[in-house]
């Protein structure tokens, strides 16, 4: 890459970006020196940890790298996704172990009364004791407790909105004193809302019918007979 031609004024000059200061972190109880500002995941690799369980999409969407951490002198243990959280000096962290929460199984298209069925599938859901630990455990800042209550009250639309940010890391489940797995409750309510409460889009049905009736067959015949050159001209001529 031709970097010599760069206008000096268009260069970020932060010395610490080239030679970052090192910070001390504790990984699963052992102290290590790592560059300031790297993600917890990169700190693991930097210190020679081979990661199998604990790495997934590396983009903050899959929830595989759910992590407990604590910052210097703070008694509060917090949660984050290791792929998307930066180290701080004095931080301690460990991956959250897999947790055997129960997921109910169901056919969302067939459940007779989805709102009532919630209590059969997840009878523990209405037993929430409002301790708010789930909300505090959520690395996505979802108001999990509120989401569970909305599910219990049958407002599945609100549940779907509340849990749209949920990456299913499952950190809300181990902290629940009523043994609720709020993320599973959220998925059920959200799916039931989508599958059973939302209206069917009319335009989609019409399009499917048009395809099934062969209404595009003449177009296809015309297009598929074309040479590459003709196709190129045709696609180039489509107004955008």
């Amino acid at each position, binding site marked *: *890459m*031709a970097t010599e031609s760069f206008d000096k004024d268009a260069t970020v000059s932060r010395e610490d970006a080239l030679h970052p200061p090192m910070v001390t972190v504790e990984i699963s109880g052992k102290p290590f020196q790592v560059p300031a500002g790297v993600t917890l995941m990169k700190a693991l690799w930097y210190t*020679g940890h081979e990661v199998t369980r604990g790495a997934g999409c590396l983009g903050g969407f899959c929830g595989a790298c759910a992590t407990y951490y604590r910052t210097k002198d703070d008694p509060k243990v917090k949660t984050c996704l290791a792929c*998307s959280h930066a180290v701080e000096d004095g931080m301690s962290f460990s991956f959250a172990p897999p947790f055997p929460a129960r997921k109910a199984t169901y056919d969302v298209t067939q459940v007779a009364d989805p709102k009532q069925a919630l209590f059969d599938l997840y009878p523990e859901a209405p037993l929430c004791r409002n301790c708010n630990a789930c909300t505090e455990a959520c690395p996505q800042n979802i108001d999990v407790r509120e989401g569970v209550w909305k599910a219990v009250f049958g407002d599945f639309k609100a549940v779907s909105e509340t849990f*749209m940010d949920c990456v299913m890391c499952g950190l809300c489940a181990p902290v629940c004193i009523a043994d609720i797995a709020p993320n599973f409750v959220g998925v059920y309510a959200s799916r039931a809302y989508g599958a059973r409460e939302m209206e069917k889009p009319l335009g989609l049905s019409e399009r499917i019918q048009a395809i099934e009736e062969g209404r595009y067959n003449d177009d*296809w015949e015309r297009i598929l007979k074309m040479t590459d050159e003709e196709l190129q001209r045709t696609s180039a001529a489509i107004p955008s």
Partner: protein
Amino acid sequence: MDFHALHDVVHTSRDARCQQHLPRLSLAERDALIARYHPDYRQSAYRPIAFGPNAGDRTVHELAAMLEGDSRIADDLSLTPTHTVDVLVVGGGGAGCAAALHAHGQGANVLLATKLRLGDSNSVMAQGGMQIAVAPDDSPVQHFLDTLKGGHMQNDHRLLRTMVEEGPSIARWLLELGVLFDRDDDGNLHVKRGGGSTRARLLTCSDYTGLEIMRVLKDEVLNQNIHLLEFAAAVELLSDEHGACSGAVFLDLDNKRHIVVAARTVILATGGIGRLHIQGFPTSNHYGATGDGLALAYRMGVPLVHIDTFQYHPSGCAYPEQLVGQLVTEGIRSEGGHLVNAKGERFVNELDTRDVVASSIIRECEEGRGVRTVTGRVGVWLDTPGLEVKDGEGTLEKHFPAMVRQYARYGVDIRTDPVLIYPTLHYQNGGVKVDANGETPVPRLFVAGETSGGLHGRNRLMGNSLLDLMVFGKRSGITAAARAKTVQQGQLTLGHLCRFRDEARKHKVAGQVVSPKVFPDYAEKT
């Protein structure tokens, strides 16, 4: 200069930029730009493959070495099966889940194996949306032509027609399962404009489209009690005495034991290749995107197509360092976000195809109109605050909550500050040769999703990947389940591996690298 001071040019040039109209490039202009700046045309990055079904074809060094690589297992491994199933699905992303669900729906006994957890994939990260021609001013034919143009006319017509025609029924299936696509006030599916498309055709779930679809599909795979093997990496396929596929060998990543699965049909849905960091590019891909399926299929004798072309997503993050390589959703550009060089100028129609936009960003940077970070990275600005100015305060939070959060973690407020971007290795345009049911030339071996090739030609259009996964996951699942009813379980042998090793020895490339790679080796060795 202070990083924030560099933003000023984006803010001061905004009014003038908004008056500008940059037309999309003509085909001739596009070809010239790409030939000069696109990484696919960097000759030194390529070499011919030494042997095998694609002997003599050129591809990038990283992939050539992997295809010629040696298996992790010995020829005389004991092949007593631990599991015997009708359909074995390898991979737990979008294509794998769709394949497993449809095969199961046909009554097949299905096993889904993945080297990570179910759903840990690229699919879960897809933010931009899913192209399906549902709008009144649109049609499958229009979708076909747009995709063909984006793919440089190299797309397999049969695969492409199949995908665009089945799109609407896939949308219906996902809605029935409870996927919450964005809607218009009249209840119809809301469509957004995607790069390279002449019609608004992207179905979205805010900027969580992939996450929402995968949450639902994962949940459904669990609801159907489909047999799962997690943290099991496929290290070799098995062949019968006639060369047909008869199962696979996995490495259990927890206890390092081998697991042998006998299967009447096998569907490879192992995803892409970004973690090979082709040409040293950062990547937007997930941890396991090491192209395992390509190596496994190649050793079985299946030819690959279009393996000389990769997609570099125009907007990979170039700052802050923690986010380098991660995607900045194309949605920002779909909604009218400008790309701006260090001089405060726009330099490309932001909605042109990905290869055009990526090439033009590389051009700006190579010609000195980029912004440089001290970590040695260069990039151009994406004017995210421009959307707040244009569409009102709160626009970003409403439409791009994931992105606002992604940057806020590192103290960057994309509502007030533009973000620095540079192309990132995103997608493998080509892959294993398949027919419209995902079947490869090797009997009983199917491939679906990013591992397959031909559908996207030489450049995949935004939003076509999610649809590809669903359509060909479904078709391969249904076909593999039907085939499993008509065939007997084949013998379990490593005949193909012995033949492959003989070839490798002849070409003196035996034992140079081990493939599949399974994971990138990021752990520092001292």
